[in-house]
């Protein structure tokens, strides 16, 4: 590793929050409400609350780790520096592929929104969702390789517009749901399908919380990380968690679970039409397009950062991190994200994409909590976090148990795929990188 130059820290708190919120907000509100309510009924609110709880249990230990090691690479870096290169490689590959699965999932959501818009405009054309998602994946990858204008400001604006839009929707919807505006309500039992679906739904929708740890992957670029990292991670989880729970609460107040399930990925559009008329529907359609696209884009960028982190430690070939001289972008790493995303879209099972993305992240989250416990126990000289996770060891221990535990509630196919990918990462390590010693080994 060569440290010839200084690295400017360019991200303030608003930008860091926007990374977290921008990555997360696409899924929970604009894709999941129909699917989640169909599985768990109004108790899907509880599923989202469970997700937020687990995310918070992980966000606090992650904040401590990130302030002690404010390096690019996030979870990969923390785990490889505390638990060795085998688990590090598995986490790094999991982070890379997890974001690939997540991005494919967001783009499928984007496809559903575009199809709905095309249908609403009555143009008489019928484009399959997968085609739209596939082409968008290629276009996004192309733009991220060749685009030299920073889209960071655009991302902030999108997040701002979305939050304003959602505040209007939720404010109106909440009054409606509580009966203040005298709208009709759908009376329903809280958990019509029993308790188990509450947990399987929590496992499904956990993809909605996969943004906060992305803040840690750019820890090296955040100004005043001691203050801004914990604030951004915890703040973004609390904010989107609140938005999700409210959205589901309102959706299930307006429509029955069966109706929401039938409406599918874009159920929230119908909810908005019911609350605020055609204008509401149009606003949410546009919001859905922006949100899913912004989540997909943020995931592609983060994914390429994970490839770089692995390459820096020689766990994957150096060439993967090469920067294109003309565009100054890591074109190989971006292709290593965009290519698999396009392939996964052809596979096309939205729920499996979401669950594998969550599984790979939960594996990392659980290990980050364990990493914190190990570091607290061994207390190496270099370990001097500016932020201290409260209630240790109980909180990180609970975070680890909850992270690993949630995986048990996923579909067998998702568990198989996720475990297979992690096993493949372990085999890669044995074959390619068993003799790697970390250049800046801390322990």
């Amino acid at each position: 590793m060569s440290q010839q130059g200084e690295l400017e820290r360019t991200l303030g708190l608003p930008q860091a929050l926007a990374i977290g919120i921008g990555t997360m907000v696409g899924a929970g509100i604009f894709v999941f409400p129909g699917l989640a309510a169909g599985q768990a009924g109004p108790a899907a609110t509880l599923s989202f609350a469970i997700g937020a709880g687990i995310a918070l249990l992980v966000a606090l230990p992650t904040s401590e780790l990130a302030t002690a090691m404010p390096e690019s690479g996030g979870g990969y870096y923390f785990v490889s520096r505390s638990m060795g290169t085998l688990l590090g490689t598995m986490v790094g590959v999991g982070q890379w592929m997890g974001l690939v699965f997540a991005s494919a999932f967001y783009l499928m959501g984007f496809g559903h929104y575009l199809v709905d818009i095309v249908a609403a405009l009555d143009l008489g054309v019928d484009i399959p969702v997968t085609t739209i998602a596939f082409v968008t994946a290629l276009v996004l990858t192309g733009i991220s390789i060749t685009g030299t204008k920073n889209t960071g400001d655009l991302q902030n604006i999108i997040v701002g517009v979305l939050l304003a839009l959602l505040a209007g929707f939720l404010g109106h919807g909440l009054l409606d749901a509580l009966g203040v505006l005298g709208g009709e309500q759908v009376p329903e039992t809280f958990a019509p399908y029993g308790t188990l679906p509450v947990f399987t739904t929590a496992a499904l929708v956990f993809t909605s919380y996969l943004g906060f740890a992305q803040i840690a992957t750019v820890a090296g670029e955040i100004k005043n990380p001691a203050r801004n990292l914990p604030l951004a991670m915890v703040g973004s989880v609390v904010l989107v968690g609140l938005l999700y729970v409210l959205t589901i609460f309102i959706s299930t107040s307006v429509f029955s679970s069966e109706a929401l399930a039938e409406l599918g990925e874009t159920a929230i559009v119908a909810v908005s039409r019911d609350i605020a008329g055609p204008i509401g529907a149009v606003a949410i359609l546009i919001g859905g397009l922006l949100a899913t696209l912004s989540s997909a884009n943020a995931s592609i960028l983060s994914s390429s950062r994970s490839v770089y982190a692995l390459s820096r430690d020689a766990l994957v070939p150096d060439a993967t991190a090469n920067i294109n001289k003309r565009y100054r972008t890591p074109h190989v790493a971006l292709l290593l994200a965009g290519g698999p995303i396009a392939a996964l879209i052809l596979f096309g099972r939205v729920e499996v994409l979401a669950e594998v993305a969550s599984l790979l992240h939960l594996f990392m989250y659980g290990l980050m909590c364990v990493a914190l416990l190990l570091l607290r126990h061994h207390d190496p000289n270099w370990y001097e976090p500016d932020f201290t996770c409260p209630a240790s060891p109980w909180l990180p221990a609970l975070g680890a148990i909850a992270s690993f535990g949630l995986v048990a509630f996923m579909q067998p196919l998702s568990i198989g795929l996720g475990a297979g990918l992690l096993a493949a990462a372990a085999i890669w390590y044995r074959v390619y990188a068993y003799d790697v010693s970390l250049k800046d080994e801390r322990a």
Partner: protein
Amino acid sequence: MPESDFTPQTILIDVSLPEAAALSDELIALLGSLHVVLVGWFEVPEQTSAAQANDQFGREMNERLDVLAGVLREAGAAVETRLVFTGNPLDTMERISAEVDSDAVLIPYAHDRVEKVLVPLRDARHADRIATFVNHLVQTDTASFTLLHVREEGETDADVLTPVAESLTTIGMDSSVIEKRLVDANDPAAAILDAAHDHDLVVMGESEPAARDILFGTVPERIARNANIPVIMVRTHSKA
């Protein structure tokens, strides 16, 4: 700090990498008496982590900075180099400028004459400071100076130029080499750019970056780029 005690000491040179602008011998000679901080910045887009760019380009960029530093040292300047990989060069220059407490920032351009110096002035507030800087830096017998004020529509007729001309002559400059030029225009930046075309160097006070500066480059950057001459911004912010 009273303005009259001001002696320029530290100047930042804004070096945009990877293709660093060359410094002309005439410009290098001017900098000989100063402490020069060469700030080489390499802009990275958000898709790229600064660390990644540093790994790949750090060594090579430092070598380029060292070449420039060597030339300046030969001219007698005390030189320090800083290499920064950044997503926001404006932030970077601002931060380092404050860190080293610099008196001015130079945006270099290879232009092999320093005879006609343009000094655009917005108001008389920092007149002394700018005058001292101009005098200290350009001590050749052949140089002439144009003090330029752009009068915008509705602006009252406060004379901005006379106090500056007076401080220049008080310091010891011959009044025959000072030209006062008052221009009426609604776009000051365009008027300054226009005037810059028949000059060899621009010395101006720094301005707060406005939104359009972030989109199209700051006024000094645009002058350097379009008029193909070096620009020196004298820092006028109160120092920390």
